[in-house]
């Protein structure tokens, strides 16, 4: 036993030594992008890090660029949420960098799968938007704490990483990367104009009977309906992001009645389905993601992500190193996570409508016109293209909802996982089968 447990260590150092020697002749010029110190390049060139996350975040081009900039290899794996959780918990060694959606944190908390990040290891913390560092908007107002708000999700109580602190500490749960404000997508041509939908309650308006859709995912689907019910005045929730059994029952009951009355045309479970529902005109108002709206628009069909008076449903994701990383690999992981928010990624993802946690760095990788359009909500001075160069918006158009803090500064509720999620799943199954 002693032998076998000590062997891998010896092997590791011997291998690294050999490879370091082999690479000795070649001068590997790796430059840190953000000016932070790089790990000794000769050693790192044999390191491979597996970055796993949702397809909207674990994008191959980003991994390729990181590989080029950093000198070690980043492998991007786009996987579905349940697979990601499963692998994180049952085969943690198959992932190195976990690209976690905040709602997955409660599942991972205290499981020892992901490692806490000492604030000092993350160079860009002071430049990160205050939403994550203090739970406040740049103007100083505190953000909504319904659902799992950034301030609640960002910090561990201590280095044991067993509990969330809910206030700033020295240990981060993850490095925040991208975030956005979700709302309803509409077909202005089929609802009578952009200004015809102004509130979440319009989702339940009988006039759109048979032409609405929800996402087929209980925590978000129920929350969108809750936003609508609250604005329609049916009842007020103590916390839409953490409903009681009674609140779930009341909400599901109304949903079942609506469904039986044929109010919903469909429930979508993939990005493409939501795009097709909207593009084909099967649905004229539905809960939707921002890039899906853009995807509909890029087909030449008018689709609008409508700002609603009650506010948006917010979400954010981040990166966390897996707990099994150590030594050189862990150093590389920190370096990669620092690289991630150093600009290239932020610029890339901005063109898909997402915001970077460190906007100042993303700005360097956007043209002034792009920055004005995506972040400042100004009319596009030139044609706006997506990260792959396809035309997205014609010159003169304005981003729906306006500037970053007009959108992100108006979050009514954050994506979450409820304490009663077990009960919610059961009731959701009942809803779908009724």
């Amino acid at each position: 036993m002693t032998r076998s447990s000590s062997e891998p260590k010896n092997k590791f150092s011997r291998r690294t030594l050999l490879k370091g020697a082999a690479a000795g002749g070649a001068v590997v010029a790796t430059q840190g992008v953000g000016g932070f110190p790089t790990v000794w390049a000769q050693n790192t060139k044999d390191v491979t890090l597996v970055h796993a996350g949702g397809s909207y975040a674990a994008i191959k081009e980003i991994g390729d660029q990181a590989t080029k900039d950093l000198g070690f290899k980043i492998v991007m794996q786009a996987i579905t949420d349940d697979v990601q959780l499963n692998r994180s918990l049952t085969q943690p060694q198959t992932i190195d960098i976990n690209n976690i959606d905040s709602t997955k944190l409660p599942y991972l908390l205290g499981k020892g799968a992901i490692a806490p990040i000492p604030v000092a290891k993350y160079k860009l913390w002071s430049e990160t938007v205050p939403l994550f560092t203090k739970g406040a908007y740049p103007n100083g107002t505190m953000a909504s704490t319904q659902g799992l708000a950034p301030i609640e999700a960002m910090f561990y109580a201590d280095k044991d990483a067993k509990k969330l602190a809910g206030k700033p500490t020295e240990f981060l749960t993850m490095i925040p990367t991208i975030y956005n404000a979700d709302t309803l997508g509409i077909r202005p041509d089929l609802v009578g104009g952009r200004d015809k939908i102004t509130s979440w309650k319009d989702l339940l308006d009988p006039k759109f009977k048979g032409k609405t859709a929800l996402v087929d995912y209980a925590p978000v689907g129920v929350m969108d309906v809750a936003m609508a019910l609250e604005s329609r005045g049916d009842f007020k929730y103590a916390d839409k992001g953490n409903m009681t059994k009674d609140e779930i029952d009341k909400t599901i009951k109304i949903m079942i009645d609506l469904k039986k009355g044929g109010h919903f045309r469909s429930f979508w479970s993939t990005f493409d389905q939501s795009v097709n529902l909207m593009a084909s005109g099967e649905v004229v108002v539905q809960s939707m993601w921002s890039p899906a709206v853009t995807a509909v628009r890029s087909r030449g069909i008018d689709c609008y992500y409508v700002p609603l008076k009650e506010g948006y449903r917010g979400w954010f994701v981040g990166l966390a190193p897996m707990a099994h990383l150590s030594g050189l690999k862990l150093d590389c992981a920190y370096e990669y996570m620092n690289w991630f928010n150093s600009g290239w990624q932020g610029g890339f993802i901005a063109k898909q409508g997402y915001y970077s946690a460190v906007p100042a760095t993303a700005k360097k990788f956007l043209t002034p016109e792009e920055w004005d359009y995506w972040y400042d909500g100004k009319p596009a001075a030139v044609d706006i293209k997506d990260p792959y160069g396809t035309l997205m918006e014609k010159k003169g158009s304005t981003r729906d909802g306006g500037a970053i803090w007009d959108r992100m500064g108006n979050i009514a509720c954050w994506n979450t996982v409820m304490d009663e999620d077990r009960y919610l799943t059961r009731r959701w199954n009942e809803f779908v089968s009724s």
Partner: protein
Amino acid sequence: MAIVNPAADAFAASDRAEPEAVEYPGERASWLQVAPLVVVLLLFFGLPMLVVLAVSFFDFSRTEIIPAFIFDNYIDLFRSEVTLRLYASSLKFAAIVWAVTLVLGFNIAYFLVFHVRGLLFQIGLFLLCTVPFLTSNIIRMISWIPFLGRNGIFNQALQGAGITSQPLEFLLFSDFAVIVAYVHLFTLFMVVPIFNSMARIDKSLLEAARDAGAGRFRVVAEVVWPLSRTGIALGSIFVVTLVMGDSFVVRTMSGGQSASVVSALQNEVAALQYPPAAASAVIMVIIVTLMVAGILRVVDVRKELAG
């Protein structure tokens, strides 16, 4: 995945339902012959099933399954009226699809075997039936969506021809759409075994029946139908297990408006609630096995194949 598995289950089930082998000298050799299959089935079907069975009695929290021996998962399952609704829905789909594919399958096979002259032509047409299988299940199913949609080809054609004045909404994201897709996907599973049994019917039997004064329908009812029973039984097993085990078709074609037993189970798995999902799977296996056993009771496939 979900579409293939039930078929495997069906094979396993039909295997178990076999009557006891009669003793004869080559018995040891036949045990050896069957050994590879037994090993494969035990490893890849028996063992996983045992794990599922064990987990179905476990307790669970948000992220963990906790070894225990509790009946809560089953109690929840049997107490919930959702279970009943889900099975009613799955059985309804299975019954309708079975009836439609049987009528289609029997007629197509009958046409191929008794009306098409010449073996080459027969095989050619038969292969033609399998052409759709060169594309994936998913593509064949999804192509119905633009066809049946509100502004789809079919609705446009109906309106263009002046048959309807506004789009028919029930065509897509409805039970109708689910059944269309099932029938499209699964009819061949009915055609092939029935074709196979019919092709082995001695043509002189039909002539004899006709000579004895039987009309066309009587020949079909009293000669062709009974002699095709094996094929019908096998086809029925395929279709019924495929429909019962499906979640993807029902979810996509109903736009998430209808559920099946397996789609509900999938929701539980997605929420990391394995023990209730396992309990649901165990009950599902029992019910489908009973259904297959029922079919095999009506038709002794083994005997008729050997005969």
